[in-house]
């Protein structure tokens, strides 16, 4: 932020000494105290902070769990039960960690959809957005690896199904699968490497999060009007106390939601089958991934060809990285784009329905007339997959060219106060307010 100069003033002799050598207090002050925040952010902008909380919560509970967990096919299931029964507050750590994964994804999906609705991926925030897609990918990998660790039936068969996807790669597929497994089937070497990687990836996420926040603080936050900050005094407020207290309030509300599941309903988001120890000789009736993978699983199964399905599934995530260039509209915020709004909400509904198809048996009948099947689950998923990709490849490029957006406010301050009221804003400027 070219206009935003550091307002940090070292107060003590030690702070002055340190500031001349390692300006770390200045860095923290500039990024968490005086950092200018658009004053019109709504509560959807609190999910970045909530995600940071979830990442830390997952890492802390995970580190404690590792102290008691045994990554071995003969002991993993037992050691999880040991945590649940014999470790002090082990049940709390374990349920926080397993439900925390779901909470992490709920928050990240809200965060992503918010970015898509308000056009947060558009220039100059392309790199910020792509780093977010990288974090999302790493999160998916971490969650998948973690679900294997309790070594229940769904752990084992989920690992088998997902690793087998790589066998679809021509020529080297089978070799890659054996390499991933560390053998000729999902077995102890697989569990060991999954455990190792499950411990590694969160720290990689943490690293990319730092880049994500760095990019964010460099270009500044987008806001519901999508209009860039023009006048720091009028359009922004300092991060502390304004955003800090708002983020904290939202975070605690999210914790209540989180606590509801952890304490009252801890197995709702999981599968009963994962309380059956892994049995390589007994395939569960339906192998279903965790809810947060279901839309992608729906796309995978929509394509009758194995390689095609795998390509479509990975493409459905990779395409997110190209959003900044697929969306041709000059207007950022969906608020001022009536046709985009329709396309966006269609996309949201289609994503949810894809998740539904992913949870159902493929041969289930969706629509039948007079006993004749018109549409089964695969056919339904194919239609939805087509709409999913059409949003990116047809709707976004075209709408920007043909849509007539509504009039934008002249500034952020105008969007809050109306054009008349933006003259005098007491106390709102991007420096710590005087007390």
């Amino acid at each position, binding site marked *: 932020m070219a206009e935003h100069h550091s307002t940090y003033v070292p107060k003590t002799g030690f702070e002055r000494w340190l500031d001349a050598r390692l300006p770390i207090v200045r860095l923290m002050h500039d990024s968490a105290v005086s950092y200018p925040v658009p004053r019109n952010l*709504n509560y959807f902008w609190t999910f970045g902070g909530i995600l940071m909380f979830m990442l830390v919560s997952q890492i802390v509970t995970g580190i404690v769990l590792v102290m008691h967990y045994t990554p071995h096919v003969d002991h993993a299931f037992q050691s999880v039960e040991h945590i*649940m029964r014999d470790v002090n507050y082990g*049940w709390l750590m374990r349920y926080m960690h397993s439900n925390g994964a779901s909470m992490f994804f709920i928050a990240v999906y809200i965060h992503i959809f918010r970015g898509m609705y308000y056009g947060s991926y558009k220039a100059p925030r392309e790199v910020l957005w792509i780093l977010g897609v990288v974090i999302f990918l790493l999160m998916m990998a971490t969650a998948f690896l973690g679900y294997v660790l309790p070594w229940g039936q769904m752990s084992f068969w989920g690992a088998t199904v997902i690793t087998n996807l790589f066998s679809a790669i021509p020529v080297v597929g089978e070799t890659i699968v054996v390499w991933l497994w560390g053998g000729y089937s999902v077995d102890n070497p697989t569990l060991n490497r999954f455990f190792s990687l499950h411990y590694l990836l969160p720290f990689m996420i943490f690293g990319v999060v730092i880049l994500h926040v760095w990019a964010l603080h460099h270009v500044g936050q987008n806001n519901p009007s999508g209009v860039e900050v023009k006048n720091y005094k009028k359009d922004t407020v300092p991060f502390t106390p304004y955003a800090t*207290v708002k983020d904290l309030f939202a975070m605690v509300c999210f914790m209540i939601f989180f606590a509801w599941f952890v*304490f009252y309903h801890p197995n709702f988001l999981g599968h009963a089958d994962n309380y059956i120890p892994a049995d390589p000789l007994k395939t569960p009736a339906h192998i279903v991934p*965790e809810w947060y993978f*279901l839309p992608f699983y729906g796309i995978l199964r929509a394509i009758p060809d194995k390689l095609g399905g795998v390509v479509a599934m990975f493409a459905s995530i990779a395409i997110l990285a190209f959003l900044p260039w697929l969306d041709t509209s000059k207007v950022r915020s969906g608020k001022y784009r009536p046709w985009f709004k329709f396309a966006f909400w269609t996309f949201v509904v289609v994503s949810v329905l894809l998740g539904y198809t*992913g*949870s159902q048996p493929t041969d289930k009948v969706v629509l039948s007339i007079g006993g004749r099947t018109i549409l089964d689950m695969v056919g339904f998923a194919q239609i939805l997959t087509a709409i999913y990709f059409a949003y990116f490849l047809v709707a976004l490029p075209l709408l920007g060219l043909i849509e007539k957006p509504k009039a934008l406010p002249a500034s952020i301050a105008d969007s809050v106060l109306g054009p008349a009221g933006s003259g005098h804003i007491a106390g709102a400027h991007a420096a710590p307010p005087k007390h």
Partner: protein
Amino acid sequence: MTTSSRFLLAALALSGFAALAQPALAAGGAEKPPRQKWSFSGPFGTFDRAQLQRGFKVYREVCASCHGLEKLSFRNLSQPGGPGFTEGQVKTLAAEYKVMDGPNEAGEMFERPARPSDRFPKPFPNPEAAKAANNGAVPPDFSVIAKARTYERGFPFYLFDIVTQYQEQGVDYITALLLGYEEPPKGVTVEPGLHWNRYFPGNKIAMGNPLVAVFDDAGKPHDAGFYTDGTPVTREQVSRDLTAFLMWAAEPKMEERKQTGTKVILWLILLAGLLYLTKKRIWSRLEGAH
């Protein structure tokens, strides 16, 4: 919040849950089990100590010869939130079991009476022995079975379950299974070694009706004094008692969890209220704040 952002919130909440995975126990031909009333359901639910003690008796006398409880130790029976046996009772009870210990100083394994710290001995030394004794099927361990069984709730009921906290699918299913043994419908042949059950997925179950150990064909108990606390000995009662015990065995920290949860959530609500007021106060410094 504008209407559209409220809609966004609702849609996203739905996207999180509407697509929830269906339990894998969805094989056709089984009826949905009827809902039972459980003392441990809901946010303030606790186990009925007397029921857990009765259920343990049923487990011990009817199920234990085939089904293990290998993740539990005898001492668990006297822990808070459980059946509430005294430590003395548990000591006596444990001593009735024999466990393998050793090696001793001579390098030999030896049998000794169990102590409260010992785990419940397994009914079979290995899965092969279990298969050999049970027509090729391994009787599952009972430690977490109440959480390992369920039935499909279907859309939209699992969404309501988030609010009502209905999570007793496993115990409802097990109770129904115990009471679900019937003559097969006309025209259906049940292969030897299998039995017809209304609630079992696929209807053909390897386990014979376990309640015949307690009741005759007319539903009368072989021993009217099976329960010593005056509880009527009926098939329904015995099934529910055993199932409640299995729920406790699967989730021995449930009472502590729910009670901690209430404190945590009340504290968080209070904190959220204070933060909201603080937020309002701070933002009121701005003109046109919202």
